[in-house]
């Protein structure tokens, strides 16, 4: 047929137009990844400034405590909305959903482009929010009345609200795109129960986004009108209630933490299976464990608010509901271990990061069970113990899955093979760094150190000093990552189409490396399910 030659003609615009106007899932995915790295530098710099300030008791160099609060806020927002989400969802999701389900591109390529540029605009607004009118020093939770016009009179919080609105709109568009693509465009033969777990994870994440983000958008709009148009949704003197904000925020906020970690589950599942040279253990259990985590994740939000004074029955409910989540999470952990059991494992960098992920997630997970109990939470709430907990489960776990996914797929994306020894070095530096950084925070928190303080009583000096050294080591790991990036892109070592061998069975390994501009032009044929 004559159109075969036509198919191979790349309609690839050149120069800046290729990127700015891009409707190609791979280019958009790349842009998301670059944005995420750029944002990680800003968010990481904020962490380093905070840790340097906390290195010793007393004020070191941040003379304006408001600036410290701004750093706390910016660090949280940037890491959640502009590092983890763009990398795991926008980056790897865009790149590998079409490749793994055997379709040429996303369902709505132009909407995909809009999604990306909305995030880019949102990042700019958020950075402005950090520098205008003294910055937004509200924490990423933006609790009123602190975030109301009386206590943050400048434009900073408004810029922050608009930034989140844009990022939220982008996420909703992206979620619609992902859901449509995954439901309608899978290669024939790829039933729901035969999708790679990464695709399951992305589908669930997209549903969580679709259901959670509108609630945040509503709450943000109410805050915006409270601040600027005289409404009193959250103002007690006008009949409103600050606690309403907490409910709305955490109704979004709790699913949000699963939005960050479900894609990580997907990536880790792929990598563990590939490197063990075994299919994933308990595939259906894994898929439905993720589904139940997603569903239950919507009915546990108030465990973030145990100290705000609910009646005891409500706290009892949220305690029990929260503990339920430990069960599917346990299924995932043990299924990963069982996948490795009996495998023939090669411990390349992606696998090292995956094992690191599993360990960190278990450490953070068990402290999560502790914190789920409203009773003991009285001792832990808003202390560094909580900081340690959530950095273990979602920040460094998400980071490890990002690194893991990057090393796993970098050959596919760039066509070059990263230097293995440098990757492993980068892993060990990061692993030591993050544990040194966050483990001592459990102790400081148990001893009573509150979160979000620029200066602490002298007794906490020891753990904070270790924590700060851990932060510097983690930063070295971050710099090493950029060295790996540079070394790989400038090297001549080509990555094969399937660089991981027999264990790599998903469809992205059937196309060349680097993946051509257009892939799966001929629909791949999935062997039909054997009759049982």
């Amino acid at each position, binding site marked *: 047929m004559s159109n075969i030659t036509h198919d191979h003609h790349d309609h690839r615009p050149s120069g800046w137009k290729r990127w700015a106007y891009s409707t190609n899932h791979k280019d958009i995915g790349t842009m998301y990844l670059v944005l995420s790295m750029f944002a990680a530098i800003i968010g990481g710099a904020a962490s380093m400034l905070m840790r340097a300030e906390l290195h010793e008791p007393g004020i070191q160099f941040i003379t304006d405590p408001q600036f410290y*609060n701004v750093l706390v806020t910016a660090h949280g927002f940037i890491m959640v909305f502009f590092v983890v989400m763009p990398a795991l969802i926008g980056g790897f999701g865009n790149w590998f959903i079409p490749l793994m389900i055997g379709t040429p591109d996303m369902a709505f390529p132009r909407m995909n482009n809009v999604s990306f540029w909305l995030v880019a605009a949102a990042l700019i607004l958020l950075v402005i929010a950090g520098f205008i009118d003294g910055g937004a*020093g509200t924490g990423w939770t933006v*609790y009123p009345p*602190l975030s109301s016009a009386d*206590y943050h009179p400048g434009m900073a919080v408004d810029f922050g609200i608009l930034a989140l609105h844009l990022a939220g709109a982008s996420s909703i568009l992206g979620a619609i795109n992902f859901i449509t693509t995954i439901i309608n465009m899978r290669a024939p033969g790829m039933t729901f129960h035969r999708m790679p777990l990464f695709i399951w994870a992305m589908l669930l994440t997209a549903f969580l986004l679709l259901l959670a983000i509108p609630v945040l958008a509503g709450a943000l709009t109410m805050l915006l009108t409270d601040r600027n148009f005289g409404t009193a949704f959250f103002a*007690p*003197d006008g009949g409103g209630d*600050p*606690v309403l904000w907490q409910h709305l925020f955490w109704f979004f906020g709790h699913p949000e933490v699963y939005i960050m970690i479900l894609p990580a589950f997907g990536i880790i599942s792929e990598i563990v299976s590939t490197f063990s040279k*075994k*299919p994933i253990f308990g*595939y259906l*259990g894994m898929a439905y464990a993720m589904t139940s985590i997603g569903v239950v994740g919507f009915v546990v939000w108030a465990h973030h608010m145990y*100290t*705000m*004074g609910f009646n*005891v029955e409500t*706290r009892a409910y949220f*305690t029990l509901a929260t*503990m*339920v989540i*430990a*069960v599917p999470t346990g*299924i995932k*952990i*043990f299924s990963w*271990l*069982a996948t490795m059991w*009996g*495998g*023939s*494992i090669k*411990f390349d960098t992606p696998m090292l990061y995956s*094992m690191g992920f599993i360990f960190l997630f278990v*450490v953070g997970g*068990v*402290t999560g069970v502790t914190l789920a*109990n*409203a*009773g*003991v939470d*009285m001792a832990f*709430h*808003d*202390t560094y113990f909580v900081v340690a907990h959530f950095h273990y489960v979602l920040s460094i776990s998400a980071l490890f899955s990002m690194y893991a996914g990057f090393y796993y797929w970098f050959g596919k994306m760039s066509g070059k093979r990263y230097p293995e020894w440098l990757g492993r070095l980068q892993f060990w530096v990061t692993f030591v760094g993050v544990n040194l950084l966050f483990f001592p925070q459990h*102790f400081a928190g148990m*001893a009573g*150190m*509150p*979160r979000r*303080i620029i*200066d*602490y*009583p*002298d*007794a*906490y*000096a*020891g*753990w904070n000093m270790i924590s700060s050294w851990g932060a510097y080591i983690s930063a070295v790991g971050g710099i090493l990552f950029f060295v790996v990036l540079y070394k790989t892109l400038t090297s001549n070592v080509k990555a094969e189409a399937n660089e991981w061998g027999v264990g790599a069975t998903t469809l992205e390994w059937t196309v060349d490396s680097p993946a051509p501009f257009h892939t799966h032009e001929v629909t791949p044929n999935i062997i039909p399910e054997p009759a049982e």
Partner: protein
Amino acid sequence: MKKNSDLLSKLLQKFSSMLPWSVALICMPLIQTSYASEPQPWQWNFQPPATPVMEQIIDFHNLMFFVEVGIVLLVLGLMVYIVVKFNSKANPKPTKTTHNTTLEVLWTVIPIVILIIFAVPSMKLLFFMEKAQNPEMTLKVTGNQWYWSYQYPDNGNFEFDSNIIPDEDIKPGQRRLLEVDNQVVLPVNTEIKVLLTARDVMHNWAVPAFGIKIDTIPGRINETWMKVTKIGTYYGQCSELCGVAHSRMPISVKVVSKEDFKKWLKKAKSEFASSDNNKMLKLAQLKK
């Protein structure tokens, strides 16, 4: 390198300079019956409990702690075993096992059993700490940017503010960021109902040794209780981000014998004669 060792030695110096009064603190209970509950350098556990609630929190936490450490060690052990036994050199031929119903049922059911074992004491603790049975007196706490106000509604209804002692006025032996000008004084072994609210933004009144941490929210009055069983001085800090001086609104509670409390009340009533603030608070209460 040199800079690092300088820093280290500086810190070591700092610690050693703190040593004398840490020793003094440890010895204090021996010398007199009162002691202070506060964080210690390199402390890696809870502060000593001073209320039945905190004792129960610690007991329940210990139960969870040992099970959780066991789980982490189990996973770590399995991972080490996997690394040793199932690396590509030791085990060149992977198995094809992808299912084992017994295992899958076990690792679903065992966590459920563990969670039920946790849930029972958790619920007991939660309902125990909820409300005082027979409160003998009431303390009202109000959070302000950036100090606490304390009111004794059923002991003369006087109110006073409790401000941080700034770093430059800290005397040797005082705890930086923890000392206040006017401590809350409370009687020992007395069931005390605590009402909490805030005047501007949200704050959180937290005293680790009491197992108390409650948000103070404008427009709302929260309630908790405590029964401190040891005479002494207790320290806590605001635990909800409340703006610029969030790290500078400590809580200091002096728990004295019932007789000393009566003496203090007499003195305090004259010292902190009712101020205009009280009227504002009553208004807030009426609104509620």
